């Protein structure tokens, strides 16, 4: 089974990383701020890496935070789904 392709960041969204590992996305069209927890920051940054797929992102999160792969994979799916709904990312 081939992995679903990652969506791409909406160019109208500005990412700002904060000192504590969290981040903020500002949608320049709607002027909404979205806060990202540290694992969502990993997801966002990974979108800039073309070779990476959802399971590779989950793998990174598993290594960085104490979560099992299944939980991390579910989180990545959820985050990407929400980002798509909010127009923060665009379909691949």
């Amino acid at each position, binding site marked *: 089974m081939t992995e679903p392709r990652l969506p791409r960041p909406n160019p109208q969204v*500005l990412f*700002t*990383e*904060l*000192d504590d590992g969290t981040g*903020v996305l*500002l949608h*320049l069209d709607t*002027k909404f*701020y979205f806060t990202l927890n540290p694992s969502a920051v990993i997801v966002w940054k990974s979108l800039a890496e073309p070779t990476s797929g959802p399971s590779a992102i989950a793998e990174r999160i598993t290594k960085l935070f104490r979560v099992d792969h299944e939980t991390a994979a579910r989180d990545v799916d959820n985050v990407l789904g929400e980002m798509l709904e909010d127009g923060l990312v665009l379909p691949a």
Partner: protein
Amino acid sequence: MAVTWIAFHLTDRCQLDCQHCLRDPGQKPKDLSLATIRKVLGEARRLYSTKQVALTGGEPTLHPELEGVLDAIVEHDFTWHVVTNGRRFEQLLGLVHDDPARRARLTAVNLSLDGADEATHDTIRGKGSFRDVMKAVTLCAAHGIPFVLQMVLNARNVHQIEAFGLMAAELGATRASFSMLQATGTHHDEALALPPRAWQNAQHRVERLAAVLTLPVTMPEGFYREQPFHVCEPMKSELLHVDVEGRLNLCCQHAGVPSEGPARDVAADLTTTSLLEAHRRLLGIIHETQAAKLAAMAEGSLGTWDHFPCNWCMKHFDKPHWTDEGARGPEAQRERWRGAWAKKVVLPVVR
């Protein structure tokens, strides 16, 4: 009436080259000396019990001793705000967070934003600068730092007054401010100029916006006044402005702007003159200016442009100003000096 705040024109250094910039960019940039800042802060606190400091430029975050400036503000028990283009905001944030006393005394960050969208802003201020400001806005919002969005209106962005106000409200700014473009004495004046009627329309739109938004919407000095005799904040001594050479002068709109002959808006060099004595001389300049306005009124020689107080003031001091035939007065150089100064500025980088 009191000396409510002191503005320090910290530096002429800037990474941008905005079309409406008033600083004569051909000049090699100067920095206001820390010793002068300390002296003036001490005198202002002692003499007037002044509590607020504004840091302007140029781009104030490029002052090589900015950290020392912030420490002096804290030591002399002032609160402060800064006007910035946002490009070095993370460095500024690093300095602010290094000492809780600096953060506690920071009342606002005023971000210069000249359009409600990226294309309009970047046309005036240079590519990438809209996103710099938006990033600074995000950091302010994330760190709970109050921020003001301030726009210099001109022919390229005047259509965006309402969109700008709405954007400021949506982003969580504490205030939106609209200034009137002053003639720069450069070739940009022709494309940026608006006729008096268009300025009055813009002013009405800002007033209407202020009535609609819950966010405070303000207009600094400059816009049309029905009554020709108007006493502005600097002329009431509510604001004292120290230019980049450490001199007390009339206001920021005069500082660094070319004039025919020696600059007459300068009261005294504060490195060698006490603030009190410089202030006394400044009152002389102010009274001479007001008397000249009364004389022009008596002659009946005032035209529509003379009802714009800053425009009349700039004309009176032989500086670039608007007329019905376009900008008049001395020319400013335009090529920005791009020496090696930027490399010498070292500030801590957060993260």
